[in-house]
């Protein structure tokens, strides 16, 4: 069979919704696109632990604290599922870490914003996880099996993340005027960066067309962003706080919300490394990686030493 036949057979599988599995033939670009996307996704989960980790010791109650710890632990798990999925494509995990630390690999720009108050934990759960879920639900049907399966687990686990965030906002909004103002301030700061999470507008999105053809993406950035706005706007009304966009209003004709222009200059600045916390995030990850090196080495040395002593191994039954 020649290359063209193999490629059209591959496309035929995609078009008939047959999943691609690790050892199946795939075009090099399909492989590279997935490694890049899954890698970015994994890095986002891992870096995403940092803004929230900032508040674990200062959570206002034990209930909030256990929820926040569970959420951050989930994010670590999600990062690990995703690194594993990337590895099935031949990516090297250590190299992926190096690319994150060197700035070569990207992660979601939202995590380069600081978490200044407790209400930010509410806003992140409500908005950032809300946006992530919008992005991830269609990925459960992604053409690449291991990525789709990882997304099913992630989506199942993440449903509590958004709810706990909304609950934090809801409680603050029903609290004292100062608490409500804190919630409003968090919404003000996280609204636009949340909209940017869906990526550049369709007209400028370089990968969308190919990714859709390959069944990696099911919807465009703008389609998902619109869904997100339509979901969040009524929730903000319920909370009694105002989305910081004077152009946001219900459009009776289109049956969706119109909203204002996004500041793409800011988006590209943050992507390029000039956001408020880019440097701090990468430093924290690099420090953890470097200072943990001796633990990884010691564990491996210990494992090698134990290898001959297999008496304690219990048989699989």
């Amino acid at each position, binding site marked *: 069979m020649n290359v063209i036949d193999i490629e059209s057979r591959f496309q035929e599988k995609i078009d008939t919704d047959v999943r691609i599995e690790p050892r199946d033939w795939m075009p090099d670009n399909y492989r590279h696109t997935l490694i890049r996307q899954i890698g970015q996704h994994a890095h986002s989960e891992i870096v995403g632990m940092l803004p929230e980790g900032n508040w674990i010791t200062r959570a206002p109650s034990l209930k909030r604290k256990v929820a926040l710890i569970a959420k951050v632990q989930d994010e670590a798990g999600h990062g690990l599922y995703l690194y594993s999925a990337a590895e099935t494509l031949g990516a090297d995990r250590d190299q992926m870490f190096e690319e994150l630390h060197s700035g070569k690999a990207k992660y979601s720009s939202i995590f380069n914003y600081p978490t200044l108050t407790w209400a930010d934990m509410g806003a992140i759960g409500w908005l950032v996880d809300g946006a992530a879920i919008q992005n991830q639900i269609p990925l459960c049907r992604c053409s690449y099996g291991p990525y789709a399966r990882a997304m099913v687990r992630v989506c199942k*686990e993440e449903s509590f993340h958004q709810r706990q965030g909304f609950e934090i906002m809801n409680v603050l909004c029903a609290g004292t005027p100062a608490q409500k103002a804190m919630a409003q301030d968090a919404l003000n700061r996280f609204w636009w960066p949340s909209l940017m999470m869906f990526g550049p507008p369709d007209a400028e999105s370089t990968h969308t067309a190919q990714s859709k053809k390959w069944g990696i993406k099911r919807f465009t950035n703008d389609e998902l962003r619109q869904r997100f706005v339509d979901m969040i706007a009524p929730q903000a009304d319920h909370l009694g706080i105002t989305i910081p966009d004077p152009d946001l209003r219900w459009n009776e004709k289109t049956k969706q919300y119109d909203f204002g222009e996004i500041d793409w200059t800011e988006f590209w600045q943050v992507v390029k490394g000039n956001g408020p916390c880019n440097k701090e995030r990468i430093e924290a990850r690099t420090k953890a990686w470097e200072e943990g090196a001796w633990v990884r080495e010691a564990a491996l040395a210990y494992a090698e030493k134990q290898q001959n002593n297999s008496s304690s*191994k219990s048989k699989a039954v």
Partner: protein
Amino acid sequence: MKSWPLYEVFIRSKAGLHHKHAGSLRAADAEMAIENARDVYCRRSEGVSLWVVLSSDITASNPENSEELFDPAEDKIYRHPTFYHVPDGVKHL
């Protein structure tokens, strides 16, 4: 530095069911793989038993041989009960 080996994780979700592949993870040894599998794949009562296997110890069929491996089963309809005629009125067959 050498990286930790890759393990495949299998979970029995409850007694009476098969272990099912859940995913993979890296660990220094099998014992650590079990502990990590508990944390990574069983945070919400997903299982009652875990298996971990070094990925490098798994022999997998090659997708290129799928036709010769699996196609022969497709035309053997006589292996299914629906192939056989049962007269009307005959029960328990």
